[in-house]
């Protein structure tokens, strides 16, 4: 095995070569003190052996020095190692040398490394922007592996995320995810390390992403703005696509289920010596469904979508690689709704929505030296959405709504591995964004310049590690952001590892909050973004439309990004090698949350609104997860999260003093937020037999949560809670392996989602009981 680090007594280190051999040369003076060297008794030596994806081995041994018979002979060191569980041969006899050096000689030391608890070689990139073993990251990171994804029978990533501990699906103009109590807008969603765009009302619809060509999904909880910038306030979800090394590989999957839900997807990998290609195609459709029979239109509309993606890698030289990625996604939705034209008139309309999402990345990876890796990338993405509304009765055109966003990001990142102890990452780049929509007459453009640096220091490699990061974002339309982050991990023993981190996260004001210029013609109110409010209000004043100004535009302070400070700390405990307990406690304090508030009153009595930094939120809680491997074939996972999410409520009340006279009392309290469950949990049982049979039973629990503010006091009162729910999914399948050289595989699976047929109009992503059959072929 190549690249295994071997460190003697924490002072001198080397790494294994391609054959897995190592030659550790150390000065005796480095290993031992002068006092120790003057003795002939055995001296203690430790060897740390570590590699990505494997449990670090620590060898305790003794070194004994025998003086040479002649004065010119420096004598002989002999080593004795305590043979621990993984060591098959633990004798090392170095020869003598005039400079007291250890040398690989007579008998080699065989060391067999054990894979870590997760699948061997689970390497994550999201936590540090560099490849790092999941076991060695200083942050709370969880990984959904390809095996878990393919075993789940899911087709869209929302279905697989919903089962994870501490993640809660939300529904607000698309299916989003709630992490540590934050709405979907506060989690950065990335595909191969590049942000996905096209958020509607803050939600990036997770149903846009197929699970087919995904190798793993990495979930980092807690703010990661120090590395990834805006939106990484609650966490980061990074979707990593498949990479194969076989000369040629292909897979195909077909699924059909209730509501005419069909999914067809296939991947083709071709790997040549200097170039590799991957092509992925997917089509997905459903008739949608209706949960409330009294309303016009469906809860989830009929849709069909398609994804095509390509990635090509060319090895230009030994030290230079070029990777090109292209992705195209198109979705069409068809729905019927009742629209209120004015106070008395309403009309039924049919909406045809089309969404197009295109992205392209060109990346050069240059390794000038073994320890240095530089990546130059250019990411381009565009998202457009068009809605055509037609009156059903008359067939007449009613309205066209459109929205188009582009995002470009050139970026340069360099990683330097100075030694086993120090590793640095630095990078900088530029983001340019444009938007056009009927609600943004100015076709706004914004830019961000950013730079970041991260330093990892391992005083005891494999045991103790500290990471510090800092990122600076300079934006054209809001105040610049400085986001630091510190994290540490300490492996107390083979079985116990602690993690802790503190950092800052931010979320940039979105286009709506910056540039909106919208007047509701029926109700007569106006909403301006923070960058359009001065000019817009001035125009209204000149036209004599303003009756009263609450706050002069020149008194408005520059809008700030919503920002947080957060703490995370937890531990992994391996009660047995097959029984892991993992926990993380979190605390987030968010300030400057952007809220809409009136700035002036029009002569019509209606208000003019703009956006202010007003709100404050604290979320805190903890999660715990157990992962048990039973008798090779069974895996049991169970998770639980406790969450306490509160918003600062400031109320001014008019009450009376003892004399009955009026007094104003201002109360500041943190009160429970809506749509947050204090208790959520899951249990997942997977069976994968050697005979090819496989099965999964998954239960997802959601505790009671505040549903709607009946008394408009801004927080969830006890009588505003919706009751708890539990969703069960069951699937079973069989894999047949053919004994030809290619070893192709065929898997047939059938399953029932939402076994107990739970539905709730407020959680439209639960469609009621659904059955499906799926066929997967792997060549």
């Amino acid at each position, binding site marked *: 095995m190549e690249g295994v680090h071997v460190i003697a007594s924490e002072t001198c280190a080397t790494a294994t070569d391609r054959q897995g051999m190592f030659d550790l040369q150390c000065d005796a003076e480095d290993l031992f003190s002068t006092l120790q060297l003057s003795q002939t008794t055995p001296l203690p030596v430790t060897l740390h052996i570590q590699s990505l994806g494997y449990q670090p081995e620590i060898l305790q041994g003794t070194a004994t020095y025998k003086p040479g018979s002649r004065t010119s002979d420096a004598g002989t060191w002999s080593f004795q190692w305590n043979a621990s569980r993984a060591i098959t041969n633990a004798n090392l006899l170095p020869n003598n040398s005039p400079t007291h050096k250890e040398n690989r000689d007579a008998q080699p030391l065989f060391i067999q490394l054990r894979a870590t608890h997760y699948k061997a070689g689970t390497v994550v990139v999201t936590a540090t922007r560099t490849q790092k073993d999941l076991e060695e990251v200083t942050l709370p990171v969880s990984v959904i592996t390809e095996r878990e994804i393919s075993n789940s029978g899911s087709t869209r990533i929302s279905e697989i995320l919903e089962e994870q501990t501490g993640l809660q699906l939300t529904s607000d103009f698309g299916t989003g995810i709630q992490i540590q109590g934050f709405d979907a807008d506060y989690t950065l969603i990335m595909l191969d390390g590049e942000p996905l765009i096209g958020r509607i009302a803050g939600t990036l619809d997770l149903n846009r992403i197929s699970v087919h060509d995904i190798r793993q999904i990495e979930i980092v909880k807690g703010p990661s703005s120090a590395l990834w910038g805006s939106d990484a306030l609650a966490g980061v979800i990074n979707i990593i696509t498949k990479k194969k090394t076989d000369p040629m590989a292909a897979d195909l999957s077909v699924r059909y289920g209730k509501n005419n839900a069909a999914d067809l997807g296939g991947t083709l990998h071709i790997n040549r010596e200097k170039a590799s290609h991957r092509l992925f195609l997917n089509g997905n459709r459903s008739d949608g469904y209706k949960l409330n029979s009294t309303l016009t239109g469906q809860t989830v509309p009929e849709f069909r979508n398609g994804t095509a993606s390509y990635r090509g890698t060319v090895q230009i030289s030994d030290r230079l690689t070029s990777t090109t990625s292209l992705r195209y996604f198109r979705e069409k939705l068809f729905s019927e709704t009742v629209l209120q034209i004015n106070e008395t008139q309403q009309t039924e309309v049919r909406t045809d929505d089309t969404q197009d999402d295109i992205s392209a990345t060109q990346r050069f990876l240059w390794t000038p030296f073994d320890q240095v890796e530089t990546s130059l990338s250019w990411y381009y993405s565009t998202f457009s959405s068009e809605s055509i509304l037609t009156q059903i009765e008359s067939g007449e055109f009613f309205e066209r709504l459109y929205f188009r966003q582009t995002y470009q990001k050139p970026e340069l990142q360099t990683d330097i591995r100075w030694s086993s102890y120090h590793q640095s990452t630095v990078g900088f780049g530029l983001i340019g964004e444009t938007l056009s929509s009927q609600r943004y007459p100015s076709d706004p453009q914004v830019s961000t310049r950013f730079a970041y640096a991260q330093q990892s220091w391992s005083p005891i490699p494999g045991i103790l590690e500290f990471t510090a990061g800092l990122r600076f974002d300079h934006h054209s339309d809001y105040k610049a952001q400085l986001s630091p982050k510190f994290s540490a991990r300490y492996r107390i023993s083979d079985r116990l590892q602690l993690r802790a981190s503190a950092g800052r996260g931010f979320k940039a004001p979105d286009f709506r909050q910056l540039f909106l210029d919208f007047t509701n013609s029926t109700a007569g109110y106006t909403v301006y973004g923070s960058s359009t409010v001065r000019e817009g209000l001035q125009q209204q004043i000149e036209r004599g439309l303003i009756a009263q100004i609450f706050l002069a535009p020149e008194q408005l302070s520059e809008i700030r990004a919503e920002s947080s400070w957060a703490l995370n700390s937890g531990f992994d405990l391996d009660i047995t090698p097959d029984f892991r307990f993992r926990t993380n406690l979190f605390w987030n304090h968010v300030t400057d949350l952007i809220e809409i508030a009136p700035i002036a009153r029009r002569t019509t009595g209606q208000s003019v609104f703009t956006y202010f930094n007003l709100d404050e939120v604290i979320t805190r809680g903890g999660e715990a997860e157990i992962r048990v491997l039973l008798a090779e074939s069974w895996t049991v996972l169970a998770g639980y999260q406790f969450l306490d999410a509160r918003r600062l409520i400031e109320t001014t009340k008019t009450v009376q003093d003892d004399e009955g*006279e009026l007094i104003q009392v201002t109360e500041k309290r943190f009160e429970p937020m809506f749509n947050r469950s204090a208790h959520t949990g899951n249990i997942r049982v997977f069976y994968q037999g050697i005979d090819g049979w496989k099965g999964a039973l998954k239960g997802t629990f959601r505790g009671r949560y505040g549903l709607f503010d*009946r008394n408009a006091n801004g927080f969830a009162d006890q009588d505003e809670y919706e009751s708890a729910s539990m969703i069960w999914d069951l699937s079973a399948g069989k894999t047949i392996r053919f004994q030809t050289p290619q070893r192709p595989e065929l898997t047939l699976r059938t399953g029932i989602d939402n076994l107990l047929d739970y539905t709730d109009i407020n959680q439209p992503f639960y469609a009621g009981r659904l059955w499906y059959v799926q066929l997967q072929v792997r060549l």
Partner: protein
Amino acid sequence: MNTVTRTFIRTFTRTPLWFALPALALLLLQACGTTNSSDPVSNTESQLVEDLAALGENGVFTLFNLRTGEATTDSTSTNWDIGFRGTTLIFNSGSSGPGQGGVVLLDLPFDDVTLAPSEGYQADSADNYAISTGSGTGWYNYTGEGFPPFAILPRENVTLIIKTANGSNYAKLEILSYYEGNPDPTSDEFVNIQTRSASRYYTFRYVVQQTEDLREF
């Protein structure tokens, strides 16, 4: 116009003795033992008004006299204290009428208010109603797409203190419902918009102090 049904619980009850004790004690202290035969005697009257229609046809307010418990439509007189039209409330002074009235919105439960403040009464003006017409800022909350959907529900623990049109009587008032028949807003019948009873029918309760210039309830 729909008929207005009113239920009177016109019980000219004397305020219980303990109710007046603090005030009496205060008076005793101030008077240093001297007796004053002209001390005003509290005379409160509790009423429940059901389904007062405020349909606002042709923009007309349904005007109500809290002292007599009678409805009228002549806004130019001082024969009314509070007016209703849809969700809008008016009071007899300022831009709304010739009277000396006014209103205070107190964030206190109806039963906790035992004394009207001496000052701070708001009058309607051309720009602003004394009781804001918006959801959550005046007397009601609008539920929008929430639960029950598209409903006007009175804010809890809000009491209106009204100075009557003559400027010398005080009343405390709590709006109980905006819908005909004062339905339970959590009932299935109310939650379904199709079966919900008609809006713009006020049910409210109030206590008026019939003794002039006395602020106790």
